């Protein structure tokens, strides 16, 4: 007969080695009842806190039962073991209540903001077109950094842009580049191109598509110019119009934008930033 391993012997022949078996049984029982030190049982949580009687009394009873079990140590002990967060910004500023464990939810002032109504959504220009630039590196969560070649420090040509999700029935596409921060309190347009075929899904860097019409930018020029004094963030916007505006070359970009917004079309937005050294 082959010799059994220790574990097999323990399981198969409890009659032999009774003292060891009994000791292990006690250890097993103690460990299982104690939750192996890693169960959901919390420090300070007595067996009575999970009694069937307490459970049967329902939520209201649970809230009032066993005041002695509501020791401060409950959540405090847990936090010390596993839940120490890195110093959260503002965490220390949370309003505290003298009569309660945790913080009080701050009381808001004034009326809550109103969500857009269906009518307002219908009248808005919906930002649901995907617009991006294959010319620019990813922005790591922020605006994409604009390489100098697409500014007055380089060739001064516009980057390639690609888009998807233009709604069916779109009559005209119009591209804008705008400063996000106003200049002397006014919207500053760096570039505006109308008359883009809705069937297109992008434009090449520095090349206008056939039929495109260029407007007058904030510098008074018919063209593209990104030339900040310091750091600036720009918003490229592709507007999809439900009916054409077909402006003349050299159109007033600010005026055309007002007319675009009245049409309640769709738009794709893409942010890029540049800082002159």
């Amino acid at each position, binding site marked *: 007969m082959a010799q059994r*391993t*220790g574990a097999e012997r*323990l399981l198969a022949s409890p009659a032999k080695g009774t003292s*060891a078996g009994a000791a292990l049984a006690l*250890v097993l029982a103690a*460990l299982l009842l104690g939750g*192996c030190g*890693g*169960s*959901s049982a*919390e420090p*300070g949580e007595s067996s009575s*806190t999970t009694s069937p009687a307490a459970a049967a009394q*329902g*939520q209201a009873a649970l*809230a009032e039962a066993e005041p002695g079990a*509501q*020791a*401060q140590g*409950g*959540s*405090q002990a*847990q936090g*010390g073991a*596993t*839940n*120490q*967060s*890195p110093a*959260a910004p503002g*965490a220390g*500023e*949370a309003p505290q209540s003298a009569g309660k464990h*945790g*913080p*009080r*939810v*701050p009381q*808001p*002032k004034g009326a*809550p*903001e109103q*969500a*857009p*109504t269906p009518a*307002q959504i219908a009248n808005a220009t919906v*930002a649901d077109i995907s*617009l*991006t630039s294959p010319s620019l590196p990813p922005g790591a969560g*922020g*605006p994409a950094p604009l390489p100098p070649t697409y500014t007055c420090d380089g060739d001064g040509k516009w980057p390639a842009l690609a888009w998807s999700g233009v709604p069916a029935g779109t009559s005209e596409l119009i591209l804008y580049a705008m400063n996000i921060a*106003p200049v002397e*309190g*006014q*919207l500053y347009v760096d570039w505006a191109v109308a008359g883009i075929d809705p069937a297109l899904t992008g434009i090449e860097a520095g090349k206008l598509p056939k039929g495109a019409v260029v407007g007058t930018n904030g510098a008074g020029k018919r063209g593209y110019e990104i030339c900040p004094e310091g750091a600036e*963030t720009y*918003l490229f*916007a592709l507007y999809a119009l439900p009916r054409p505006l077909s402006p003349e070359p050299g159109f007033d970009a600010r005026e055309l934008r007002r007319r675009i917004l009245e049409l309640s079309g769709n738009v794709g*937005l893409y*942010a890029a930033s540049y800082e002159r050294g």
Partner: protein
Amino acid sequence: MRTKATAIGAALAALAVLCAMFATSASAAPAWKFEAKSLEGSEVILGGALDSSLTIPGLTTKCENFLYKLSIKNEAGTGKGEVTEVPLYNCTTNSEVCAVSKIGAEKLPWPSKLTTVSTSPYIIIEGVKVGIIYSGEECAVDGILVAVTGTAGGLINNTTEIATFDKSSFAATGTALKALSSTIEWNGVFPTEAFQWHREQALSVS
């Protein structure tokens, strides 16, 4: 004697494996607790942030107060819930020419669940959708409706009873909110408390 010692050793090793399994399963499925007792039935909790901000590339939108009302329960030992209300107060942008005309949560309720990442408890809120309409004649996004969508993961600190949503909590939980096809930043520190049956009781998850 030597055989007996071997038997005890093997059994203890087996127990250690069992215990490790129990410990792992317990930490992987945190439950809602009040005063260290698992929640039975349901409860409504309220979280409220001061100065919560949301940054769409190039434009930051801040709300002085950002509340959420969450109906919670434990299912098979795991904390679940539904965000039923998200009132926002006094929302503005960091641009002098852009105002928040309309902002609000859409497609409520948003399902939520608790999870554990590297021993720390997190709340995951799915199906998040917030619609924002900006206004301002000189604002680059005037009249534009931007939808913020996705899943948000926040770290729960049991000691302070605060849920923190930020870049690191999103990274830890593999969650993201998106707007305009880009991942956006959302920062919010939410003191949280029971609103219904367990008012004034210590809230924790584990």
